[in-house]
């Protein structure tokens, strides 16, 4: 079965996020009531797996091995069969 996984990698809370802070400041200067902005990366991955649980296991492994650095990144994902 083919799955589409939308993986979001974001900075863990507590670490400074200079890109997010810069974007927030710019949005505030444009007059928007923005309190904070957090920047992350989104990966859309297509993968084949025998089941949803297998696809989730593979996704977790990919995140731990490459897409997120556990020192500074959190990750979350949403999975759907396509």
């Amino acid at each position: 079965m083919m799955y589409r996984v939308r993986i979001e990698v974001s900075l863990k809370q507590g670490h400074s996020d200079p890109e997010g802070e810069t974007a927030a400041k710019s949005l505030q200067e444009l007059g928007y009531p923005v309190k904070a902005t957090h920047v992350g990366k989104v990966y859309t991955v297509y993968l084949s797996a025998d089941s949803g649980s297998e696809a989730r296991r593979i996704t977790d492994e990919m995140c731990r091995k490459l897409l997120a650095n556990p020192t500074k990144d959190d990750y979350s994902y949403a999975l759907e069969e396509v």
Partner: protein
Amino acid sequence: MKRSEIRVCVLRVGGTNCDAETCRAFTDLGVKAETVHMNDMVESRNLPSYSALVVPGGFSYGDYVRAGAIWAKEISAKLGPELKEYAEGGKPILGICNGFQVLVEAGLLPGFTGISEQPESALGTNVPIGYYCGWVYVRHTSQGNCIFAKSIPMQKVLRMPVAHAEGRFMVTKENESSFLQVLHDNDQLVFRYCNEDGNPANGRHPASPNGAFHDIAGICNPAGNVLGLMPHPERAYYSWQLPDWTRLGNAMDYGDGRLLFESVVRHLKEKNGRL
């Protein structure tokens, strides 16, 4: 080991830079150094024949995902066992700038309990944000453990350039103090950003070019044979690479970066081929 018997491998992939300058620095010290493409190294599998390995600077694979991450995983996947044996056998490994990012992502640094499966630290986006290219001062803070710093007097302030956008040394927030304690206990803290007079940068730009935790510019592994640093010693090797070289006249032939190369060459020479 005679100088002429020492062979240094400067590994490269797409996006690497300063590999030629790194080779030239070693060659100037009378040792053989050559640039080897990653694909050739994987094919030949002759990493063990080299006396030292350098992972140079640059923007390998476009810095995609995170700076150094893709190359680090490639090295782990294709050269993992050889590299493990190489590092654990005490052979010198130097990571400069992108090379530092690679060694961190590959789990060689800080390497508290050997090569870690997942990174134990990170080099995050600079604070203030953006690519920063300029000369900085770093203070040598190791107590003699690191083989790349043995010719550098303790507490000496060195001037070298940096050129990066992701150089902010980071550790997990909840472990900052214990992490620092282990670094101190193992004598792994090698270079810290400072002002010209040697006073700590305290995270203030531009003395600290990236807002690194504890002003960390370079660390080694507990055994002292693997060093990673953000500044570029090969760009501060000759005096004529320094920004004020015309004003310095003939007062000096070399820049501070030479001390790192001299240290490792001297270490290899003294090892007398026992590596």
